[in-house]
């Protein structure tokens, strides 16, 4: 069992949790993920290693509450334990040797982009962090992102923080103003990553994206997480999750990500009804 040692609400739908997992904490690197199972009936879901503390033996995850499993996860508190916590899985990001990077996070994707910005920054690259949110109320990790980058560009779709626009507008503007990026890291919804590649590909700026297909085992055993990259089949859990943004077949990934859409919506509805009931009876 893996005990929860810290829990912090970041906004209405996002939570940070630190979990006691000493073996994983010793090994984890930026770009890797864990798979967890909340209880005996739970599914296995992947979440990125947002941070780790090798001495304390803890691994930090940041999750967005989007469906049944993340709702169940969010019911747990400090002192409770997760049934399974497996990792570190996937390849660590290859961030060595870059001078000037733009790290782009879209919404919940910031949780995954932040550790990459941090790693790049520690390796001596100059890092522009570009983070996009729907509105100012859901901005997360602002202090962390600011601390681990040279410049932070916080964008909101509705302009409620005073900076209206998509992450791609900020990226284009920076490039136009002379930012000579040798690397762009983009993490967020598939459509956002596709849009970023739309900016970087014509300019031939190397772009790493982090893919999040549906996974079960996370060890290369089921093939469910397969993607087409450069015309070849890759298993995101062992070959990724980072891939060359120029090579990924986004359309296919978008369709496959929706495989269980109806079932997930139904499960989420049931779970939220159950939680409401619980609240009423409490």
């Amino acid at each position, binding site marked *: 069992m893996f005990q929860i040692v810290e829990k912090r609400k970041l906004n209405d739908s996002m939570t940070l949790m630190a979990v006691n997992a000493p*073996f*994983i904490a010793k*090994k984890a690197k930026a770009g890797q993920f864990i798979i967890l*199972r909340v209880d005996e*009936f*739970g*599914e*296995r879901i992947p979440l990125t290693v947002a941070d780790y503390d090798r001495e304390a033996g803890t691994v930090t995850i940041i999750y967005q509450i989007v469906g*049944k*499993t993340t709702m*169940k996860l969010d019911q747990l508190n400090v002192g409770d334990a997760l*049934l*399974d*916590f*497996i*990792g*570190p*899985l996937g390849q660590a990001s290859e961030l060595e040797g870059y001078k000037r990077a733009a790290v782009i996070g879209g919404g919940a994707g910031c949780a995954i982009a932040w550790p990459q910005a941090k790693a790049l920054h520690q390796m001596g690259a100059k890092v522009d962090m570009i983070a996009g949110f729907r509105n100012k109320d859901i901005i997360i990790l602002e202090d962390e992102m600011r601390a681990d980058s040279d410049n932070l560009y916080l964008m909101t779709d509705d302009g409620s923080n005073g900076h209206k626009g998509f992450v791609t507008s900020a990226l284009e503007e920076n490039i136009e103003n002379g930012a000579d990026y040798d690397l762009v890291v983009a993490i967020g919804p598939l459509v956002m990553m596709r849009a970023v590649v739309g900016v970087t590909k014509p300019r031939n700026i190397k772009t790493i994206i982090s893919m999040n297909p549906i996974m*079960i*085992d996370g*060890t*290369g*055993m*089921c*093939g*469910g997480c*397969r993607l*087409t990259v450069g015309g070849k*089949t890759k298993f995101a859990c*062992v070959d990724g999750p980072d891939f060359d943004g120029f090579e990924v*077949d986004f359309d*296919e990934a978008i*369709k*496959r990500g*929706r*495989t*269980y859409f109806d*079932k*997930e919506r139904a*499960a989420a509805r049931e779970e939220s009804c159950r939680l409401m009931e619980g609240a009423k009876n409490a």
Partner: protein
Amino acid sequence: MPNMQMEKTPIPEQKPEVRCHNFEEVTQGYTEEMAQNEAQRCLNCKNKPCVSGCPVGVHIPDFIAHVVKGEYEEAFQTIKLTNSLPAVCGRVCPQESQCESKCVRGIKGEPVGIGRLERFVADWHMQHGSDKADKVPSNGHKVAVIGAGPAGLTCAGDLAAKGYQVTVFEALHVAGGVLMYGIPQFRLPKEIVQKEISALKEKGVEINTDMVIGKVLEIDELFNMGYEAMFVGTGAGLPNFMNIPGEDLVGTYSANEFLTRVNLMKAYKPEYDTPILDVKRVAVVGGGNVAMDAARTALRLGAEEVHIVYRRAEEQMPARKEEVHHAKEEGVIFDFLTSPVQILGDENGCVSEIECVKMELGEPDASGRRRPVEIPDSKFKMSVDCVVMAIGNSPNPLIRSTTKGLEANRKGCIVVDEETMKTTREGVYAAGDAVSGAATVILAMGGGKAAAKSIDEYIQNK
């Protein structure tokens, strides 16, 4: 006087039209009376031809003689001398090509139902026997076993019996390997696998699940942690695809994914969270046990029409005879000499059709099997909403790619000395599907046994 009845004593089974809608075990097992009757068909042959057909050399006539006398616990102990998972083997061994293929009663009539008797004895023991294994005093040596499939579990059991302190590291959240995630409940109840595993724990074997070796710990680190030798039994879990167009469509599964969702994650039970698509018309590509399991699982999930699409002829199917027979009874449709060329999808990217071509048998290939060749202009389409690829698995590269000095062959199988199971890395032994490629439970167990013997010798002579 032996029982000279020509056929095996029939074994009670759920009716096909009933069982194809549930996940309960298909074959219900002999009663004492039936077991006695079947045991009496054994001639107790002096030269024991049957034993030579068993990869672990179960003392077949001896255990059957105990059954005849009603000494079921003794029968069990006799089997246990060489086979650590009898309840599993009695159910899933391809007996027709192993022990039973050598039985003299098979010359005229049917062989003795060795598998059925083995199962009876093991089940009897689970109900009536006791497993309070006397823990062997520790000899102070530590061994790590990587992978908790039949190979790893057997190796661990044998070493524990010699006093070794054995730790098993398993990547998934439960131990059992394919027995848990691949072979379905209706053929091998998971409770039985877990009972066998509890018995191992009783013997002092420590099992650490959720540990992906090569990621969380590497073999070199395990040596540094004081493990003196290592056994690698990581299986062949990497699913093969055909590399035809359309395999990326929603509704195309590898058999591993399909079966893992259902068996390991119990997607067929409403109280479990893991989803699986509601499939109605399914094509399963392949002709082995994996394909039969996927097809019969699809039926139980509510599919109305399930096809096995196999490019060779019926006689060439590698599946156990019993599984093919059961699949047919349950209504699985077999399309022999048929090979898929592409999978087609609808506007949402979901599977809608599979296009196949008819084959005929040509000249024998290297393996001696007549090779299927395409019949020109024989393409046709079938409307389906799900395709399951069950065309084989290869060893997962995780361990070999993270362990220095561990050699593998072109197919990714770990190279070992076939007698000692010693790998190219000192102190590291390997067996099972990781070495042979996808094979059988009993061969994996046989390999695990041989490795345990070598590990013992290695440590004692160090």
